[in-house]
């Protein structure tokens, strides 16, 4: 029996095959999956904001791209995974509402995706697949057995990256 491990908003968790890991209804947030394809161990963080240093309320490490990814790597290392064996797949970062403005509040999806790419690059972790942007919500599931990321959206066919 495969357990589906849930990751909430501003939350992170790890998982080993045969289990799978999921986060539901990603909007402008980003689901970052880090995985070791040989050991079939993975972790997921549901990042809400790009930068922990831009806000005073930064106790929840999983909330930010910089501290969330760092913490996830630490958790994976505890499971015996080395950083150099990790690859990444990411999804989310949608702009849910269309506004004719450059209001930063509304472009956060885009900024989240940029921040995640930058943080992963700083750890030399390659993004092997991504499904970011557009204007719709996504539910994602990652299966460490096959390293496949399933992306479900309303009114759209299942996408596997």
């Amino acid at each position, binding site marked *: 029996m495969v357990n589906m491990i849930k990751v909430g908003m501003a939350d992170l968790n790890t998982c080993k095959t045969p289990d799978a890991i999921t986060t*539901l209804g990603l909007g402008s947030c980003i689901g970052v999956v880090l995985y070791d394809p040989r050991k079939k161990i993975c972790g997921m963080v549901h990042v809400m904001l790009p930068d922990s240093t831009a806000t005073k309320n930064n106790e929840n490490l999983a909330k930010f791209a910089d501290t969330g990814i760092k913490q996830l790597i630490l958790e994976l290392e505890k499971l015996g995974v080395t950083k150099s064996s990790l690859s990444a797949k990411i999804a989310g970062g949608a702009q849910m509402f*269309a506004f004719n403005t450059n209001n930063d509040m*509304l472009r956060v999806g885009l900024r989240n995706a940029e921040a995640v790419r930058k943080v992963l690059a700083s750890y030399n972790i390659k993004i092997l697949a991504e499904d970011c942007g557009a204007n719709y919500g996504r539910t994602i599931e990652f299966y460490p057995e096959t390293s496949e990321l399933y992306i479900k959206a309303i009114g759209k066919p299942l996408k596997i990256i």
Partner: protein
Amino acid sequence: MVHDHLEEFSDMEFDVLKELSNIGAGNATTAISTMMNLKVNMNIPVIKFLEFKELAEVIGGAENIVVGILLGLQSDLDGMMMFLMDRSSAIGVINTILTNNGAPAMAPDADFGEMDLSVLQELGNIIAGAYLSAISTLTNLTITATVPSLAVDMAGAILSVPAIEYGKVSDKALLIQSEFNEEDLKVDGYFILIPTLESFDKIFSALGM
């Protein structure tokens, strides 16, 4: 008092926010009543300060399909305001308004058409406008709202927008749940007011706190 965190708000400040929400939602109900030409009742709004992970659960789970209408706030208050309702409530509203004008009723599993979306957008506009005007009157602050933007999607995805804004200052968000009903129609509506911290402080000081 100037706050760095939402968690720093005193009980009295929360009571003030609750009361503002209550009056705003009441005003919005009157506006819906007028728009639909029906006598609409409103239950006393339930106001909750919820953790992000609980937020979507209240609205039927992260994958529940909801309609979200978002407006930007300008002038004296900066921020956003969102009105949400679940899919069946939205269909109920559309059917009440459009069938009165001779259109066929919408099936529960049908997709929203252009006309339907435009009805919902207008409803959101009226509700949000009534809500904001109540706050504006009470605080004597000028609040202008942008043209609303509408999205139909998973609750988690829609709620990520206000949650991210709240996320800068808190790990919780203020959700106002109100239920409107008429004989055959029950609308579960939710307001989320998302002022910046500075704007919260402006509201409090405008009320002499």
